[in-house]
């Protein structure tokens, strides 16, 4: 892989990007046009060399041109989720490679900037002779990890990228159909949403990827039935640990034999607390050392169930709840609930949902003598004002006491 994205871009005369417009009209850019625009941008901005830049992602073609122009040219790039989120004012040590800063989704509070290198971001990019025939639909936001993976996979393998990252699901399905997209990656929840549209099976998919959430068997079966020609794979990834693998046998979970034989450069084990541990051939980042055991395995903090032939994912050991791909920290929601007068204790936990993976439930203990109906009204109002919709418990239950584990900590399991 060359040092910079622009050098790695295929020198081909093909469409690189399609952005569907309002009335079925769409705009297209070729690989050559993107490369020329990136060079022109460098020529216009000589002062930016070796500087830190912030890239706004509101327009996909401009976003791609800036990525191409500034990787290998500037010392760091901040991929701005929204114009209002300012890049931190922190010096970047100039190195040989441009650092790519991506913001975490901020569900844990303030978004955090995490740095990556181009080599790291393109580790899973695959290029085959057929890549040029692929038309990748972009369903994720391009400035997040998953979306950027699709962007880089498409660009570096000479495929065509079709923007369907915004809009209602019906509109997005139409955009994908109009552009004859044949490669698509999405979370299980997003796939379930797209499957509501009976036109979806008309997509000529040859590559179909699921990731970001636990994948269940009925959904895999349905996708296999809708797209018999497609190569179906679901991905397990721990982005913070920089490990991941994909499963292509159409079954949920992964083969149990991985625990004995390993898979590619990964070794697997499951401890008595059902945590999945992974070890890879290259060392883990220094920041992860505290989570390694003496044999060099990393605790992924993902809970699994092992059967005679399969290992299935159950969720996060930390209790993080995944609502349609959005991570919710129960403690954060509990803090909001406890801010309401009349609430003495709160326990927030996930309940499995056949539609969005998980939903949020809450148990509340009232202060003695509180009018629980009136308090509940305040709780709902306060949630509306202080939480995102997916963070808001869909149901509240009044209880006399909350369930504690022997450690005295709140338990997060469904009662």
């Amino acid at each position, binding site marked *: 892989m060359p040092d910079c994205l622009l050098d790695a871009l295929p020198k081909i005369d093909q469409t690189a990007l399609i952005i569907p417009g309002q009335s079925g009209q769409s705009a297209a850019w070729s690989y050559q046009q993107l490369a020329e625009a990136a060079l022109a941008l460098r020529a216009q901005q000589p002062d930016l060399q070796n500087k830190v830049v912030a890239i706004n992602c509101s327009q996909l073609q401009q976003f791609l041109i800036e990525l191409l122009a500034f990787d290998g040219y500037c010392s760091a790039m901040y991929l701005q989720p929204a114009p209002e989120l300012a890049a931190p004012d922190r010096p970047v040590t100039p190195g040989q490679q441009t650092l790519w800063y991506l913001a975490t989704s901020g569900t844990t509070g303030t978004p955090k900037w995490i740095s990556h290198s181009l080599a790291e971001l393109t580790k899973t990019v695959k290029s085959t002779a057929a890549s040029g025939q692929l038309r990748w639909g972009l369903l994720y936001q391009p400035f997040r990890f998953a979306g950027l993976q699709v962007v880089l996979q498409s660009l570096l393998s000479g495929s065509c990228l079709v923007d369907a990252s915004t809009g*209602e*699901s019906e509109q997005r399905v139409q955009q994908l159909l109009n552009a004859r997209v044949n490669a698509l990656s999405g979370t299980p929840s997003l796939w379930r949403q797209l499957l509501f549209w009976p036109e979806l099976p008309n997509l000529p998919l040859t590559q179909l990827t699921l990731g970001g959430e636990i994948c269940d*068997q009925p959904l895999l079966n349905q996708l296999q039935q809708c797209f018999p020609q497609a190569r179906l794979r679901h991905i397990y990834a721990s982005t913070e640990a920089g490990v991941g693998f994909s499963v292509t046998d159409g079954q949920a979970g992964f083969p149990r034999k991985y625990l004995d034989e390993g898979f590619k450069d990964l070794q697997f084990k499951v401890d008595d607390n059902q945590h999945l541990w992974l070890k890879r051939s290259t060392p883990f980042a220094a920041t992860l050392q505290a989570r390694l055991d003496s044999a060099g395995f990393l605790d992924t903090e993902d809970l699994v169930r092992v059967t005679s032939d399969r290992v299935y994912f159950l969720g996060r050991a930390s209790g993080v709840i995944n609502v*349609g791909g959005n991570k919710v920290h129960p403690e954060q929601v509990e803090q909001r609930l406890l801010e309401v007068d009349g609430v003495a204790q709160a326990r927030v936990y996930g309940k499995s*949902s*056949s*539609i*969005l993976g998980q939903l949020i439930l809450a148990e509340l203990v009232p202060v003695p003598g509180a009018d629980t109906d009136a308090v509940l009204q305040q709780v709902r109002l306060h949630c*509306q004002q202080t939480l995102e919709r997916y963070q808001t418990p*869909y149901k509240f239950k009044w209880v006399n006491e909350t369930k504690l584990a022997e450690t005295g900590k709140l338990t997060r399991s469904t009662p």
Partner: protein
Amino acid sequence: MDLKQRIKACLEQTAELANCQLLQPVTDDTVLLQSGLDSLGFAMLVAQLDEELGFDPFSEMEIAVYPRTFAEFVQMYQQYQQKHTGV
């Protein structure tokens, strides 16, 4: 109250709780995802019906099928209710 009415009442109640504005009164031909209920609201509806009726067709299916209209949605619940209660 028959099953259809129960589901409709539950849908309206869920829409309010989920902070979704229903665009028009729900009829047989209403396309679920165009009714104003988004995927979060829809997930809440299915969870709520599971509590009220004691079954969730979506978690029982071997192959996931997603109904498009309100009538198709009700029909699916009617089929599963027969399976569960024999009624």
